[in-house]
């Protein structure tokens, strides 16, 4: 936490590193500080633009007023220091050194008589420095925003005992029908069955009859027919019963002639005895 009151930024050099709690604004010329501390300082620069900005800001200069020769010289001193410490110098630092040297040499050349439209050789560098500084600032601003874990904390209460529930997948009818079509295509069933009108109502009735037989051992034959279903319903039920009989799934039983006919599941006896 930074408890220091904020001072006007302009009047002070920006510390570019903090070593053991002490802000460091100027690199000492003699190497009294241990080399690894210096290493920390030098590594604190986020790149050549950052180093250049530091050199400019250290003297309270405006970016638009870069004394290029001086800055170049200071920049090269830093590079030399890094080399001395055998720090791995990112290639970008060397590229920047070359850029600075080039600008410097162009500035030393006598200007061609008042060439109005000729751009200042520093212009491109200044643009880059400004752009970089904007985002350097933005990063600092971002860092001061209150954020989770550091300034803000979420709340959480212990959870109750949670039962794991199975969430069941959804299926659309369309999906189901496609699956069926696929399986029929594969089984080449269409060729065999396309004549037969699949009477699903019969199939359904077969299921209903069997369901009824699950509840009761004997179901009276007549009770399976409902007059309100009309002729068609009666026929469907009758066909369903015939189909079930044919498949030996049900049996019809009659204790004596003209007595009531009962339907029972063909496997009932076995089931009971097993």
């Amino acid at each position, binding site marked *: 936490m930074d408890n220091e009151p904020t001072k006007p930024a302009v009047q002070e050099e920006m510390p570019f590193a903090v070593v053991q709690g002490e802000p460091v604004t100027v690199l000492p010329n003699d190497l009294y500080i241990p080399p690894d501390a210096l290493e920390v300082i030098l590594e604190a620069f986020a790149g050549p633009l950052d180093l250049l900005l530091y050199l400019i800001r250290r003297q309270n200069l405006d970016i638009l007023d870069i004394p290029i020769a001086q800055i170049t010289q200071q920049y090269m001193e830093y590079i030399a220091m890094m080399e001395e410490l055998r720090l791995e110098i990112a290639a970008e630092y060397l590229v920047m050194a070359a850029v600075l040297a080039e600008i410097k040499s162009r500035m030393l050349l006598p200007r061609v008589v008042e060439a109005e439209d000729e751009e200042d050789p520093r212009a491109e560098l200044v643009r880059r420095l400004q752009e970089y500084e904007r985002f350097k600032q933005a990063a600092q601003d971002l860092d001061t925003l209150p954020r989770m874990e550091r300034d803000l*904390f*979420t*709340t*959480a*209460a*212990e*959870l*109750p*005992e*949670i*039962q*794991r*529930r*199975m*969430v*069941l*997948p*959804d*299926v659309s*009818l*369309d*999906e*189901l*029908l*496609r*699956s*069926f*079509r*696929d*399986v*029929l295509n*594969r*089984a080449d*069933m*269409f060729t065999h*069955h*396309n004549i*037969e*009108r*699949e009477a*699903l*109502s019969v*199939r*359904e009735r*077969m*299921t209903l009859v*069997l*369901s009824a*037989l*699950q509840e009761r051992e004997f179901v009276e034959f007549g009770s399976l027919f409902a007059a309100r279903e009309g002729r068609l319903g009666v026929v469907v039920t009758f066909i369903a019963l015939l189909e*079930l009989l044919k*498949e*030996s*799934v049900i049996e019809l039983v009659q204790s004596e002639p003209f007595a009531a006919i009962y339907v029972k*599941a*063909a*496997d009932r006896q*076995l*089931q009971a005895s097993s």
Partner: protein
Amino acid sequence: MNEEMLKSTIEALLLAADRPLSTRNLVELLAGEHESPNHEDVRSALDALGEEWRARGAELVRVASGYRLQVRQTFEPWVARLWEERPPRYSRALLETLALIAYRQPITRAEIEDVRGVSVSSQIVKTLLEREWVQVLGHRDTPGRPAMYGTTRQFLDYFNLKSLDQLPSLVELKDVESMNPELEFDAPQAQDSGAQAAAAGDELH
């Protein structure tokens, strides 16, 4: 630190902590340079907090290692939903099995395997029975007494059918084109309602 402030600070600590806090923990955490609340203060603040949380989404409970706020068991059904995983999709094999049971019921497993050309895993049958889309209608009176499967009332309800008749017939099914127009009709509609939902979402902001 006055009483109200002490209560709110303890509440903040309990809400932020990922473990129960004992009165001793709290006394330590609250120790300040000037006024440090003692055990008594903390305890009476906890009592007051417990009272305040009596009718809320969580309650102040005391466990072995201290106090914690705990979501009330009553809310478990809703809270559990926060961690519900998106359900996996059913396999092709399962859907084909289901379709065959729907169209050819009563049908045995052997008959399904016959048509599909591959064996039907017990897991598939179990899943369909558990989902209550399929039931055992009885056993065929043939060697091995295989179970016969059929669909249930729940199956019809789930797919919003009044009866099996409402499933397309084999002939209709064969005609691929007859399925497509319906899909094409659905698509733009779906997009539409998506846009509507998005618009509604915007309004809420």
